[in-house]
């Protein structure tokens, strides 16, 4: 029965939908998990619930506490939704060049947004959040990049849902941000179906982050385990936008721009296969990216815009 006590009960159990029109071969099937169907609008609702539940279990989060988190958007929005219902305050440290809609959503949910220099990307947001946490240790930083609950959320829910709905899966293609989705789903699938291959798609954020002073400012999330992956691909901004359009034009799916990158990676992976089944992830819907002009403006204009505004 589709009747629930809380909006949080709707997190997870998202549908798989065929992207067959985007496959280069009828022998290779591509299915996408529509994470934009989560109530907060993205895959990050899963980790928001899991990280807050885990922190409550160990007594790290007390009633009325303030949560502090670096996020370029979706994790912040998921946390804001959960925090609102559970009575926590939330401060999100976010690069100042992310799409305006993310900031608007955070503010609507009552989160306090602290901006970090956009030129330093998420690395800069992480550094600023760490500094703020040191200044006021009463704030609780859940730190998605290092929190095992991020991986657990996907190991416990996303992975099992994929195997339940698509037992014939041969390859999982996911996007690399914190690496939580790839680590959790990848570990679960490999444990239960050892032949499954796991492919990571890296969004081209490294090209957009212009403000790193040295390579030592780089960042590899502590939860990332390179052994879970079999292949890692990079997809360029222009391709990401093109595939975001193809998702809409050929499949009727209005998805965020990172979905375009991931699906481009899934299609490239499909080109290397004679037959088989790929499962991929569409992390969010297109709503938060309307201001990018991705569907309406000239491709060159959107590509140039993507060098200034972080759509990933």
């Amino acid at each position: 029965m589709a009747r629930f006590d809380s909006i949080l009960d709707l997190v997870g159990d998202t549908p798989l939908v065929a992207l067959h029109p985007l496959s280069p071969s009828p022998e290779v099937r591509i299915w996408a998990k529509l994470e934009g169907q989560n109530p907060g609008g993205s895959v990050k609702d899963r980790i928001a619930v899991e990280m807050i539940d885990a922190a409550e279990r160990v007594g790290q989060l007390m009633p009325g506490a303030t949560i502090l988190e670096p996020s370029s958007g979706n994790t912040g929005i998921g946390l804001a939704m959960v925090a609102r219902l559970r009575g926590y305050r939330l401060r999100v440290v976010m690069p100042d060049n992310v799409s305006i809609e993310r900031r608007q959503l955070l503010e609507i949910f009552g989160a306090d947004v602290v901006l970090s220099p956009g030129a330093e990307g998420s690395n800069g947001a992480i550094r600023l959040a760490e500094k703020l946490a040191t200044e006021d240790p009463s704030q609780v930083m859940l730190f998605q990049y290092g929190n095992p609950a991020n991986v657990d959320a996907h190991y416990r829910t996303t992975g099992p849902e994929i195997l339940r709905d698509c037992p014939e899966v041969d390859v999982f293609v996911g996007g690399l941000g914190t690496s939580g989705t790839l680590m959790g789903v990848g570990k679960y699938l490999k444990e239960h179906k050892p032949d499954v291959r796991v492919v990571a798609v890296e969004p081209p954020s490294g090209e957009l982050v212009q403000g790193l002073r040295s390579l030592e400012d780089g960042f590899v999330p502590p939860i990332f385990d390179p052994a879970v992956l079999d292949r890692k691909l990079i997809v360029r901004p222009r391709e990401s936008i093109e595939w975001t359009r193809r998702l809409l034009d050929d499949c009727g799916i209005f998805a965020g721009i990172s979905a375009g990158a991931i699906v481009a990676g899934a299609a490239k992976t499909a080109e290397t296969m004679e037959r088989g089944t790929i499962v991929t992830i569409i992390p969010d819907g297109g709503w938060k990216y309307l201001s990018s002009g991705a569907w309406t403006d000239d491709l060159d204009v959107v590509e140039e815009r993507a060098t200034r505004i972080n759509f990933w």
Partner: protein
Amino acid sequence: MAVEVRLPTLLRAHADGAASVPADGATVGEVFTALVAKHPGLQGQLIDDSGSLHRFVNVYCNDDDIRYLDQLDTKVADGDVISILPAVAGG
């Protein structure tokens, strides 16, 4: 093999400001050796003291991260594009 090497913003100062430089080699490692010979400022930026790829550098041969190919022994072909990117977070 003649390849194109694309440099991230923070390494361009070591290569006279160029975003992209040509280099030769049969593997990514050889290409990097040739690159450092031409632009000594890149010494230590790509490869660490133990001879491995710098921890905070991701290197792509065309679309593929070389850590999941043959690392620095990954073979390159004429016209390949080697992209060097700093490791950054998302999320």
